[in-house]
């Protein structure tokens, strides 16, 4: 009985377009709690990148994009919001790392992992591109060359 119900629940997914953006509460670098939906309000493309200080591919992704970021911003007006999944073991490293690497992104922390559960990904890096209030692209992991695909999507008219 339970299995049939589970199947119905899962099948109903096919009929629903999950384009609405998940909500959750995150923390800015001053320790203030903010609502995710408030920071993604924009008519320009937004990249949301979930990362962590202990995640090497995440650092690679954000380092790679940081070199292209000024050009991307000039061309498309894109904003990159980097949301860290660091918990109290490593959260103290976020501010010095971001500054030491001279990244220009907006930095937040998913302190209670609300957004991680809402977006339902298993591990960082996890990248989401939002255009006109809708999710147009998601990608799990990072390999060199991914940045070209990201550029392609944010510069599309």
């Amino acid at each position, binding site marked *: 009985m339970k299995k049939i119900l589970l199947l119905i629940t899962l099948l109903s997914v096919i009929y629903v377009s*999950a384009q609405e953006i998940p909500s959750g509460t995150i923390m800015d670098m001053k320790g203030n709690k903010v609502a995710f939906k408030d920071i993604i309000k924009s008519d320009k493309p937004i990249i949301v990148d979930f990362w962590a200080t202990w995640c090497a591919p995440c650092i690679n992704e954000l380092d790679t994009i940081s070199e292209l970021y000024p050009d991307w911003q000039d061309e498309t007006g894109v904003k990159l919001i980097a949301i860290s999944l660091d918990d109290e073991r490593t959260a103290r490293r976020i501010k010095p790392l971001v500054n030491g690497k001279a990244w220009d992104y907006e930095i937040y922390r998913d302190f209670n992992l609300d957004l991680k559960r809402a977006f339902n990904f298993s591990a960082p890096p996890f990248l989401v591109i939002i255009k006109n209030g809708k999710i147009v692209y998601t990608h799990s992991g990072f390999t060199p060359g991914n940045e070209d695909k990201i550029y392609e999507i944010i510069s599309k008219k």
Partner: protein
Amino acid sequence: MKKIFFILLATFSLFQAQAQKGRFYGGYEGYLQLYQNDTPTSFVAPSDKFRTMNYITANYAYSHFKAGLQYEAFLPSPLLGYNPDLKGNKLATYYIDFKKNNLDITAGYFYDQFGSGLIFRAWEDRQIGINNAIRGIRAKYTISSVGQLTAFTGNQRLGFELSKSTLSGVNADVSLSDILDMHDVNIKTGFSYINRYQETASANPDLKPYTGSYSSRIDVDAGNFYGNFEYDYKESDARATNNVLLDQVLFDGNAWLLNLGYAKKGIGFNATFRRLENIQMYSERLLEGNLYNSGIVNFVPGLTKQHDFNLANIYVYQAQPSISFGEEKVGEIGGQMDIFFRFKRKSALGGKYGTKVAVNFSRWHGLNATFDYDRKIYRADFIKPGKLYFQDINFEVRKKISRSSKMIFSYINLIYNKLKLEGEGDMVHAGIGVVDFEHKFSGGNSGHIQLEHMNTKQDKGNWVSGLVEYNFSPEFGAYINNMYNYGNKDKKILYFNVGMNYVHNATRLALSYGRQRGGLLCVGGVCRYVPSSKGVTFTISTSF
């Protein structure tokens, strides 16, 4: 009750499908392992060689409501190293949440944390096999930017069951700078209280069913400087070891945490000091010291750098918050420091593309304590450190050497007190050198090589490690990863691993075959012991 919940969720989502005001979302994560006998490591595969762990989540959000469930299936048994109580399949967690204006109420299973988590944290980490969610009711009240009040009560999830004890807590976070209308400085304070109610039959009249713990903290942010301080206290309680209650003498506990930092574009610095004394808390007293982190109420991570390299994960520090008369150990005291900086591009040290450097240092000692075995009490100094448990001095240099190539150089120097941290062994001194090279070819192809060497005269001797990875496209890649313990006097074992990954949007598949080294698997500072094994592993994760 659960069946009704299921039906409601299914019909709600079907019904609202076209309305587009609601949102249905979820995910699936699965781990499959096929074990194989292995002669070099003397690993004998269990009788049920094929094991799987599956997690399915489904949620629905509509207007001010959100509801969801998580179904878990560990069939026929969980993977080796996980809590064997997690056998079978069951609706593991479910919740319904209402959020409007300043109020947020959750009924069902929820996750939360107070302060740094040293007195309370409920979270899920599937790799470590932790899910200590609380099932009960939680209410949060937010007063604009001034503060937030949280209160909850419930039982803790233990395996697929619930704790007999009840956990309750209140937390207040207040922004003093907002109340006093300060502009240049950000000052926040916080206070928490946790209470565990557990009936216990005991000859000791001082052992009460109610045990409380308190937390007080302050965070200051001024320009480029910032500082945080936290002090936690746990009331007297009985300890337990190997499922036996030690209620003759009760001990209280405390934790001190201080963090200072400076960050400005191009440079960042952070220093943390921590002292722990019997701060670990379990929802059921008899669970103290269990191998699977079952029943933990708070989060006590090891404050060291989590390295990304194979050989740097052989000697890993696990936090030592507890008391052990047998091992002559009480708590820990120490600190960690991080410096991040970059040499600008076109500068003398930066080179054409710039260079980024990260330096880290951590050192942990036990508390300096004397034990009275007759009266079963101890005395510990406040600041004076006891035996050295662990030290890690390391640096990492990241450099882009051409338009399509990057390199990382790292050196890690470790001191690991194997006797105090694992129960037997030497004081291990090890030096690890790492060279990492990555090249991006045209068409989305890329190659990656990582070479490591560990030099040590103790324990298992020297190791060498090599990883070669090639990505045929942004979606598909394959790798070979090897760790060879060539310096071992007894057995020179090669831990090999070959695998491939496929990623498409939010779906990820990975297949690998190899020999896994037994040892501590530490994720996010919390560790569990992973037995040595050999076999095929398949993992899949997707979200919808």
